């Protein structure tokens, strides 16, 4: 026995020597890390005043927002408030944007933002809008890439845990939202353990108006009660189809970590949305009562409105035979990614030992030849072998998400083994693997899920950073890692912190977007009902116990800046217009004791906040954004008199009426 162990150790020793020597020789970067890291620094260095090559829109996860970074530098430009209130920008605090966060459950100041996707035309990124899903109280938001502001949010009824979202079809005909949790559809009071067969999953197709991006629910598919995880559109030959990964096809309602991992295979649902669209256009589907908010921000009134919708069009799979099929896919697939040609659909079974790739053309053939393996709730299940294009064997542990470089390669993240793996479409061979720091979730190649990827970088987003940065107490930053993918092997260039949690990202060449970026709002186009466009129009008006202050701001004063006649117990509205018409001259305003945030007002824009004066005295307000050399002088006073006082309303600038010559 001992001899055996000894010989094992001896051989083992030798082999390790061989392995280590081989590694050291083949991987020059190990030996020359100094020289190479210098090279990496050069590759991500964007000199002062120079611009990045790509925008990266990185989801904020449980912050509810969307962050805008430059690549390759990793510099943060803006955090766009989407589903969560943001005191910095007064989003959800000012009267104009409060309606954006209305839902059928009332005002919801937070959500969990997950999967940004950029609008496409003919399968290529067009840079008009970014869509992103709110997971918790199901919503889809649209961000306008001329203003980088959230301009529309639509609630998704009959959905819960809006996770399989918000991916667009090839011409942005639809943005699609799939439910993670199946629920009673429509909602009703029923025992939880009667889940199986009774709960349903909504896949929602939201049409997008090509003129203004306006969203409207075209139809909801009422699918079997599985969990729908991620989705992507067909493109090229598969345009007109949409693919959704499912897990918990066991339909468990408790201890899913065990009970939803029982089946060997779950499904990728292939949905022929063109066929269903045609059915709906011909009067198909049932309108069912429902309640969901549709919130739209108008750039001209600088104000959002919220409308409560009352019904939604529902289609059951049996209504449109031949429109939906299931492709068996091993072990709770997460990512559902379609290659640039539209032929391959990659399912990342997060507990599977291999990556599964389905073929669209084989799928069509299998449908034609009726190669079915039974059905699930009437939906035909295709034979596994009949749609299988191939599998990447033993690629890593815990595959999650795949994107493509447009050069025939795919890149997949592996959560458990913390790595990005590059493999070849068609041969399914692994070409390279690089560690991530640590526990990577999703990854992004600009355009990496479109017909035309820009395969220069891949950005991997990590859930855990542990020792990678200076510690900041128990909560440490999340991170993104940038790899150069222009060579055969990936090269780690940069590792930068992100706002939490970077779930997913979408990237686009900067030149597509930057040229359309708005510089300021034109005053003459300002249709806000309380806008005042000159200092002479500024005024203070009492209506019962409401006082409306119409205030203007320009470098470096407010008009008026001395206001009297306000009383304890009044409700005071500040309607504030920034009269500037230059790029990058916002002003801010805040009032002592106001139970809200500051306002941050762009040139040409009007915003409103409400102040309830509670104490007698003379109280200042001031500009909060360092606007000019005399920013510190930009201030005003409001005299607050006791309730019932006979001090009249009076407002002045420099001791005169605001319209004094």
């Amino acid at each position, binding site marked *: 026995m001992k001899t055996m162990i000894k010989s094992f150790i001896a051989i083992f020793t030798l082999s*390790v020597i061989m392995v280590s020597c081989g590694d*050291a020789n083949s991987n020059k970067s190990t030996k020359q890390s100094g020289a190479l890291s210098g090279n990496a620094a050069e590759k991500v260095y964007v000199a002062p005043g120079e611009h990045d090559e790509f925008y990266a829109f990185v989801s904020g996860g449980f912050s509810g927002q969307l962050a805008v970074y430059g690549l390759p530098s990793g510099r943060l430009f803006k955090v766009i408030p989407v589903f969560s209130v943001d005191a910095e920008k007064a989003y959800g605090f000012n009267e104009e944007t409060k309606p954006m966060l209305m839902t059928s459950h009332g005002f919801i100041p937070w959500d969990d933002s997950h999967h940004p996707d950029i609008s496409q035309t003919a399968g290529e990124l067009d840079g008009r809008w970014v869509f992103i899903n709110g997971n918790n109280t199901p919503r889809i938001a649209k961000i306008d890439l001329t203003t980088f502001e959230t301009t529309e949010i639509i609630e998704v009824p009959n959905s819960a845990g809006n996770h399989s979202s918000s991916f667009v079809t090839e011409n942005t005909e639809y943005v699609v939202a799939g439910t993670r949790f199946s629920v009673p559809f429509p909602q009703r009071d029923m025992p939880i353990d009667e889940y199986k067969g009774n709960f349903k999953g909504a896949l929602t197709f939201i049409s997008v108006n090509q003129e203004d991006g306006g969203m409207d629910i075209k139809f909801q598919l009422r699918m079997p009660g599985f969990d729908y995880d991620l989705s992507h559109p067909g493109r090229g030959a598969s345009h007109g189809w949409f693919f959704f990964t499912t897990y918990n096809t066991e339909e468990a309602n408790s201890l899913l970590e065990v009970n939803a991992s029982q089946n060997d295979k779950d499904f990728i649902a292939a949905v022929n949305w063109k066929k269903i669209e045609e059915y709906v256009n011909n009067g198909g589907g049932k309108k069912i009562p429902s309640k969901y908010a549709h919130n739209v921000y108008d750039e001209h009134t600088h104000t959002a409105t919220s409308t409560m919708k009352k019904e939604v069009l529902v289609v059951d799979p049996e209504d449109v035979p031949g429109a939906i099929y299931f492709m068996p896919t091993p072990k709770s697939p997460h990512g559902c990614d379609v290659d640039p040609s539209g032929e391959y659909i990659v399912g990342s079974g997060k507990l599977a030992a291999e990556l599964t790739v389905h073929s669209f053309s084989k799928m069509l053939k299998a449908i034609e030849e009726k190669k079915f393996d039974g059905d699930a709730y009437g939906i035909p299940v295709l034979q596994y072998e009949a749609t299988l294009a191939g599998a990447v064997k033993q690629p890593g542990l815990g595959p999650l998400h795949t994107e493509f470089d447009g050069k025939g390669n795919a890149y997949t993240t592996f959560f*458990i083994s913390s790595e990005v793996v590059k493999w070849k479409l068609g041969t399914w061979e692994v070409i390279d693997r690089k560690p991530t720091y640590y526990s990577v979730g999703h990854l992004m190649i600009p355009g990496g899920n479109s017909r035309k990827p820009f395969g220069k970088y891949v950005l991997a987003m990590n859930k855990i950073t542990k020792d990678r940065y200076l510690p900041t107490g128990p909560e440490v930053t999340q991170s993104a890692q940038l790899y150069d993918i222009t060579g055969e092997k990936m090269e780690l260039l940069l590792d930068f912190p992100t706002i939490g949690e970077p779930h997913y990202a979408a990237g686009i060449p900067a030149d597509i977007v930057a040229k359309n970026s708005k510089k300021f709002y034109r005053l003459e186009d300002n249709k806000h009902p309380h806008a005042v466009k000159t200092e002479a129009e500024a005024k203070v008006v009492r209506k019962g116990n409401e006082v409306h202050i119409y205030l203007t701001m320009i470098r470096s004063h407010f008009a008026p800046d001395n206001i009297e006649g306000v009383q304890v117990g009044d409700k005071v509205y500040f309607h504030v217009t920034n009269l500037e018409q230059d790029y990058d001259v916002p002003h801010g305003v805040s009032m002592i004791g106001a139970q809200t945030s500051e306002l941050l007002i762009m040139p040409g824009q009007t915003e409103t906040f409400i102040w309830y004066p509670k104490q007698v005295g003379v109280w200042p307000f001031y500009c909060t954004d360092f606007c000019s050399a005399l920013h510190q002088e930009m201030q005003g006073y409001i005299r607050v008199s006791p309730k019932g006082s006979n001090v009249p309303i009076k407002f002045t600038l420099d001791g005169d009426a605001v319209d004094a010559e």
Partner: protein
Amino acid sequence: MKTIFFTFFVLVVLVFVSCKNDKQKVKSETKTEVTKTSSEHRGQASVAAVEGEQPNALQVAKSIEDFSTLVTAIEAAGVQDAVVNTGPLTVLAPLNSAFAKLPEGTVETLVKPENKSKLAFILVNHVAPANYPIKQLKKEVKKGRKLYMASGKYLVVEDKDGEIYIEGSKILKSVKVSNGWIHVIDDVLVPAE
């Protein structure tokens, strides 16, 4: 025996070190540089333990001499980052004596560089991407379920008079680790293929 093993292991490390460095240099002089170089490529397995923190599966395995062969194999197969992952994981950890029970020649073949992925496959056949304390394993038996392993294989779990057996191998001891559970067994569970 243990001493011999340890000696050889040290030798491995030294040779590894020397290969990575400029051949002109004397080993002792290059020690610091080695640390720096390897830090460029370290994975999650190299994150230092935090005082008072519950150790993860790999840290526990490394602290117990009876797992030295397993640990060496994990490192040779390059799967160490997977067993320190946040999990949850359940690791069926074969003792050194389990490796010694394998037919003669098996281990020698497996550790050859060209068999690195085969070795990794055998090792991940001992890791379930799930939380299986004994209580849960008993429940799995009662419900007639098998254990799904990261290799893609299913293992049979049985309850014989309160003792849990996996693929006929008795769980000798269980250790709670920060990223799941270690169940100690005295067999290497080599998949059929």
